[in-house]
């Protein structure tokens, strides 16, 4: 066992296998943009605060700027590109458009992924506090948030996600 400067990352991004040789200090965010072509992953702050780089790793939302690409081996990654192939993702997209929950779109992928995780994963009824807590992990400079909260509440009440039940 020796420390390495470069390593081969073997992972699955939106269900497609991806393999690449990278410098070990490459963040997962840069790997997803540059090696996997997922340009929905946006980098705002690169220290975990803004939420723009959020992706799902094994189904859980985490900051891809705070993870090394080397750590992705053996895990499944889902980005906005993957979520938008699902019924739930499309419903969220429509709600964002209808409620004016996006303007420039820089923050949107992060919001959608966290919301997707909340709507699909909840085992108990989703409360307003759950919605605020989930959206609170993301910064949006354009909308003023109210429209995003409205979109989230509407999605909860529609119940299209939650395993499509």
């Amino acid at each position, binding site marked *: *066992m*020796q*420390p*390495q*400067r470069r*390593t081969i990352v073997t992972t699955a991004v939106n269900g497609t296998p991806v393999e690449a040789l990278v*410098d*070990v*200090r*490459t*963040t997962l965010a*840069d790997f997803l943009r540059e090696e996997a072509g997922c340009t929905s992953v946006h980098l705002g702050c*690169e*220290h*975990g605060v803004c*939420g723009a780089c*959020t992706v799902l790793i094994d189904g*859980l*939302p*985490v*900051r891809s*700027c*705070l*993870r*090394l690409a*080397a*750590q992705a081996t053996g895990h499944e990654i889902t980005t906005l590109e993957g979520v938008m192939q699902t019924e739930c993702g499309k419903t969220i997209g429509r709600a964002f458009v209808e409620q004016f929950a996006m303007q420039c779109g820089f923050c949107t992928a992060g919001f959608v992924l*966290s919301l997707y995780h909340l709507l699909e994963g909840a085992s108990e009824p989703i409360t307003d506090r759950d919605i*605020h*807590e*989930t959206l*609170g*992990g993301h910064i949006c400079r354009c909308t003023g948030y109210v429209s995003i909260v409205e979109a989230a509440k509407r999605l909860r009440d529609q119940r299209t996600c939650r395993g499509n039940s």
Partner: protein
Amino acid sequence: MKPAPFEYIAPESLEQAVEVLVQYGDESKILAGGQSLMPLLNMRLITPSVVMDINGLDELSYIRQEGEHLHIGALTRQYRLERDARIRQTVPVLAAATRLIGHPPIRYAGTIGGSLAHADPAAELPAVMCALEVELCVVGPSGARRIQAVDFFRGALDVDIRPDELLTEVRIPIRQNVMWGVQEYTRRAGDFALAGAIVLAEMEADRWTNGRVVLFGVEDRPLRVPRAEAVLTQQVLSDSQASAVAAAAVAELDCHADLHASAGYRQQLARVMVKRAYLDAVAMWNEKREDTAGSA
């Protein structure tokens, strides 16, 4: 790619991890959840020559009860502390305090051990460890050591772990009839607290015993305040005690000042947080009494 160059190694067992630490010691940094380490690397505030990723050490991820103690492995993710049924039953203050850390994506990645080893003065978990009188276990080349929480935290980002040691476990004593409150003030949801307080006591025949008052975010480490604990303990429980406990808690406080809050403002916030946490504990007791009265 933001961090300065380093070498990466991912041991597969605790034994291997200790070997790496023995070899690289001070030159290396342990990577757990990465929620504090990665920002430091990205901003190049630290430039270790080796990063040791311990996420492969599944043996350090567990929550189990052993007799009157709850043992939690250092690599256990923070979100599990919020939701685990045993924690919510035996040490609910831990679940509640964990939910105050950052945002859900931070807690899906962050670990209990990382938060304790990092020891941010405003972090919730170090304060909870002091309030619950937890024992921390570290392992190094010469074996394991156990340290009391109050001795473990030595200052801002300074803990009793040597460069060739890892934090492996916390052991939380489970006590009965504990009433508690945890309160903090943040500028925005998910921020580090400007000031926070945990108040906790066991209830015996309408009197508090073994009272504990811990402040965080106000000095360089979590601060137990014996003076306030003395006011709390052996009192008949009542709302009117809240102000006295809170005043005692901040009487000798030497708060730090920074960009976000002056020392005076911080002290005032700390006083209010103690008061609120105390009132939460009282409310918890009243509710419990009503429940027992109702079912009798």
